[in-house]
């Protein structure tokens, strides 16, 4: 008798996951509670413990394969080397919101790329990878017409060989990032606005508050913590910034959940500080610290990264003066924070040196008009340059 190992549901909205590592080989023993495999979903990796002890008799889903929640990915047996019959049927206990049913006739039964025989032949002749081709057929099928634009790239008649490259297959996370970025560029009316901020006061404010925050939370207060707080305040005065475009209309959110763009080795993630408006800067610091630690340890959950209404992205630590970020759809705007650099500025007709920071707002012009964005940026600058006006 074999016990099925299922793709678990991690987080409220998970529908499918990718196995990125099996911690045991086929035939090996695993103890109940021991980590058996690692799942990646929505850019987060999650270790899964064995629900019971046994020999991992069969691995049914390999690394880098994506399967729906509830699908059987492996089989455990009590006896070593026990022969396991597998009919391919997922056990009856299926999470309620699993939507996929049995495949209809004529639809995919597996995960192979759908392409007509002629398309496959042409791709092979031209040395093209089917995965790299667009598909115009029903169900995402690649047809001969999709190869038409590649005519003349026949492998046999190519000119001097191109530079040799190294193909790295995208991880689940990379695929999601790619999707989201394209969506951001494609589905919003991206427009940009830059403001230069004199960061003198905000730097001072951080210095002043830091000891108390450290004492209370044990966490070092960062410049970004303060910046996020002030930004939240500014947003509060300009509700049009905290919105989402829908076909039915513009959705205004009462609460600000601030996404904080974070770079991991594997890719960009945006954990969320929920209800930042109600949090004092100490709480923000504490939350931020926890998030960063979990992020680095790979322990963030999908729920940690859902629901942001505005995002802040900072590349200041790299000395980048100014940059534009892509709106984190479905939000309406994102703030890109540059480095604080000593710059000559004119103050009462004199040239002085001040710490200057450039903030670039990318905003969705369907929702936020230029004037409204400008108003927001004006408020933001005023608050940043006068932090005492903000209750930190």
């Amino acid at each position, binding site marked *: 008798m074999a016990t099925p190992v299922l793709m678990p549901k991690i987080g409220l909205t998970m529908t499918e996951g990718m196995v990125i590592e099996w911690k045991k080989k086929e035939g090996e023993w695993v103890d109940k509670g021991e980590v058996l495999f690692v799942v990646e979903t929505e850019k987060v990796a999650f270790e899964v413990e064995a629900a019971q002890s046994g020999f991992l008799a069969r691995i049914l889903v390999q690394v880098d394969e994506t399967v729906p929640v509830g699908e059987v990915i492996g089989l455990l047996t009590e006896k070593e080397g026990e022969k396991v019959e597998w009919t391919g049927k997922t056990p009856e206990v299926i999470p309620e919101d699993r939507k996929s049913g049995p495949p209809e006739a004529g639809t995919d039964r597996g995960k192979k790329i759908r392409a007509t025989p002629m398309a496959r032949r042409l791709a092979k002749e031209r040395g093209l990878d089917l995965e790299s081709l667009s598909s115009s057929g029903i169900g995402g*099928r690649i047809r001969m017409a999709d190869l038409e634009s590649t005519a003349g790239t026949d492998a046999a008649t190519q000119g001097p060989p191109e530079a040799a490259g190294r193909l790295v297959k995208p991880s689940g996370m990379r695929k999601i990032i790619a999707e989201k970025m394209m969506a951001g560029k494609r589905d919003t009316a991206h427009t940009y606005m830059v403001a230069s901020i004199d960061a003198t006061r905000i730097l001072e404010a951080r210095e002043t508050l830091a000891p108390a925050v450290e004492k209370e939370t044990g966490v070092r207060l960062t410049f970004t913590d303060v910046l996020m707080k002030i930004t939240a305040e500014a947003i509060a005065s300009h509700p049009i910034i905290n919105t989402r475009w829908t076909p039915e209309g513009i959705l205004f959110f009462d609460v600000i959940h601030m996404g904080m763009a974070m770079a991991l080795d594997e890719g960009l993630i945006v954990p969320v500080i929920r209800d930042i408006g109600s949090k004092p800067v100490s709480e923000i610091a504490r939350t931020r610290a926890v998030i960063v630690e979990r992020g680095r340890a790979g322990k963030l959950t999908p729920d940690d990264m859902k629901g942001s209404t505005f995002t802040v992205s900072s590349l200041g630590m790299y000395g980048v003066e100014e940059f534009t970020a892509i709106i984190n759809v479905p939000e309406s705007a994102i703030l890109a924070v540059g480095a604080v650099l000593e710059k000559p500025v004119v103050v009462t007709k004199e040239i002085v040196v001040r710490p200057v920071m450039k903030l670039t707002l990318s905003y969705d012009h369907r929702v936020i008009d230029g004037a409204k964005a400008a108003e927001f940026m004006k408020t933001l600058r005023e608050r940043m340059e006068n932090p005492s006006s903000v209750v930190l």
Partner: protein
Amino acid sequence: MREIRYIKAITEALSEEMARDEDVFIIGEDVGGPGGAFGATRGLLETFGDRRVKDTPISESAIVGLATGAAISGLRPVAEIMFADFLAVCMDQIVNQMAKTRYMFGGMYTMPVVIRTSCGGGLNAGPQHSQCLEAWFAHVPGLKVVMPSTPYDVKGLLKSAIRDDNPVLFFEHKALYAMKGEIPDGEYLVPIGKADVKRPGKDVSVVATSRMVHQALEAAKVLSGEGIDTEVIDLRTISPLDKETILQSVEKTSRLVIAHEAVKAFGIGAEIAAMVCEEMIDRLDAPVTRVGAPFVPTPFNLENLYLPNAGDVAAAVRNVMEF
């Protein structure tokens, strides 16, 4: 060139071949005096006499058996079985005797028999008088099966069939008997085993037989207005199958639709589809699609629901274009 009806083209072919070769004779029910149930043999009794145009009792097995024995003795019979449905009555004589005589007797005899018969629906003739049964006979080694779709083809193919030293099942579609078409004035033959591209095209290949050739051509007109360029191939001969013409066409278009009036299931379309997949699956950009009648007997008064038509061919073409 002159215009002639399909049925008259048959009479001309018979008359010319009987005049040309003494060994050719006609045998069947009502072929003499009445000139045939559809008039195909009208006038031949008067011209050639009752030694060469034989009216028989209603005895299909005797007709085909006599033709078989006569061919063994060196004559060239053209037998008429009034309706293709009646071929079922004399199946043993066709399949076990006529088709196998040459082979099982080690090549001792040739079997130059033509069995002419009328097939197909459209005249509300009902389930026992409307069938297209070419698939049954195409499946028997030793037989040749021919289905002409125009006056030009019917005359040329009948002459070729009579001159062929092998048994030929010659299926004339009864709804085409009245069809008019142009034929040359002089002597001409249409070769058995050679299909005819009735309309060249580059987007999709439609292989059709008999009445469905005309349906396919009509569909091609409509499709051309939608920007689809259809190649229509008239098989003309079912067996031996002109594989080359079909394969060359699919090589060009990568899409194949087969249209026959016979019931789709287990029809000749299945053989062609399988053959094309075996020979060139990697040239196909869409599944091979067949148009045929549904899996029911021919209904007497619901033929408009039953008989495949130009619309069905066009729909099939659109499906493969969009795949």
